[in-house]
């Protein structure tokens, strides 16, 4: 009898243990699912040069180019009080415009709960516009018409880009790697980093961040980099052919490239450091300005 009771107790224990385990797994799954958020994925047929806009608050946005005449989007939100609006124009047939916008169903949702992450694959020739004030943006292998990216504090990384790129982040760092076409990058406190651009026109400006340019200058290209207190550093190959206009008010000018110094007719600023010269045949135009930061031109 005692044995039976003992066995009964054991059985009950096992059952309870099993139930507890199941409950634990369920709770854990629920937690994980909640942590993962609500995920959606869609594919839209698109015309050759669609216009895509993404308006987000915080989260990661990743955009990649692909060779299909489709727009593939996957997005996930952290909170059930956050929704992604999708507007497709026209709603039937290949899309001409697609707008994605994250909005709050509850105005009290704040912080990380506002997070929405996007991943998009877009066709060649896309015109792209992204606003992600508190989140980061990454664009890869994009062959488009126009891309405009704006953030306040988020970092922006663009690589293997073709087209006209406009990037602005007030406090975030901006990295542009292997871009061709036209590039404009602006920040106030963030750093700018350009790697191997093959652009015809490049503009970069930051107030207190650093600017680092690594690469060659295209023949006929126009490069303008401006900093206030941060340093500007150019690392270019010995074969780079450019005409240089470099000016700084209170900063230093350090040049390692052999230059043919040119004397200009205009009166230079008396207290400024400036350098006007040509390296090799001067095929590209490079304009560097700083107020108190150091300007360095070095050979890679």
């Amino acid at each position: 009898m005692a044995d039976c009771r003992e066995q009964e107790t054991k059985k009950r224990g096992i059952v309870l243990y099993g139930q507890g385990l199941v409950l634990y797994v369920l709770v854990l799954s629920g937690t994980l699912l909640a942590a993962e958020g609500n995920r959606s994925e869609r594919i839209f047929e698109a015309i050759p040069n669609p216009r895509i806009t993404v308006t987000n608050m915080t989260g990661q946005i990743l955009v990649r180019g692909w060779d299909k005449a489709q727009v593939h989007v996957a997005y996930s939100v952290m909170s059930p009080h956050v929704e992604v609006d999708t507007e497709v124009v026209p709603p039937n047939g290949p899309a001409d415009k697609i707008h994605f916008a994250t909005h709050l169903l509850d105005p009290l949702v704040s912080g990380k709960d506002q997070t929405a992450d996007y991943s998009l694959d877009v066709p060649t020739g896309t015109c792209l516009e992204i606003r992600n004030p508190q989140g980061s943006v990454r664009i890869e292998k994009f062959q488009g018409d126009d891309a405009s990216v704006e953030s306040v504090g988020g970092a922006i990384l663009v690589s293997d880009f073709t087209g006209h790129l406009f990037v602005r982040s007030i406090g975030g760092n901006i990295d542009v790697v292997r871009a061709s076409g036209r590039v404009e990058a602006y920040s106030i406190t963030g750093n700018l980093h350009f790697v191997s651009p093959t652009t015809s026109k490049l503009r970069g400006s930051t107030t207190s961040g650093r600017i680092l340019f690594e690469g060659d200058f295209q023949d006929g290209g126009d490069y303008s980099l401006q900093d206030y207190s941060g340093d500007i550093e150019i690392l270019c190959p010995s074969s780079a052919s450019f005409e240089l206009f470099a000016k700084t008010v209170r900063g230093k000018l350090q040049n390692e490239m052999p230059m043919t110094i040119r004397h200009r007719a205009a009166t230079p600023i008396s207290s400024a450091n400036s350098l006007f010269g040509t390296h090799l045949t001067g095929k590209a135009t490079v304009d560097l300005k700083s107020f108190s930061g150091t300007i360095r031109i070095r050979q890679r």
Partner: protein
Amino acid sequence: MEGEEGTFVPAHAAECAFCRAIVADLEALRAAAVELPLEEPSPAVWSQIRAQLVAAGAFTEKTSLWDWFRQLDLLRRPVPVATFACMVILGSLLTAPRNYPEQETTSAVTALPARTAVQSMAFVGDSAALEQVVRQLEEAFRAREGSLAPDLKATYENSLVSLDASIRECSDSLRREPGNSLAHEYLLGAYSQKVEVLSSALEFDAGR
């Protein structure tokens, strides 16, 4: 009717009775369409809307006199006017004649592009007025910065600190060397960027 239609149709209608009748009919039709009365939806429409919004917890409760005051949004209206005035004054300073030798500029002056709708225009102003406009924007920003997310607020603050430092330095430079055009360029650029940063912060707060 525009273009050719605007002259051809009335001229033809004057001569062709049939077409004249059609034109008259269509005009009567259009006049009637404009005058169609507005219809009233049933009370159920609002009830449904309200029920859904309440269920979603969409409405906030007024808690204090200060909240009521903030909701009046009195500080919002000066922003676009102040921003425009600032850009106008900037434009005037850029285009105003200077007393020192011409300094060639090899590229555009703008530090941050005017991606807002405001464009600089030729107008007479002075830097004191510019400072005042920036100050107004700053006051509006300070009044509402509490409503910004902490990391966002920190980003804006850091950028403003950086810009203020550059404004101070450039102003010092110009006091010692009034003919320093690069310092002048940077000073105006810093003000322009400050306007853009403050506008961005105010726009962000308003647009949440």
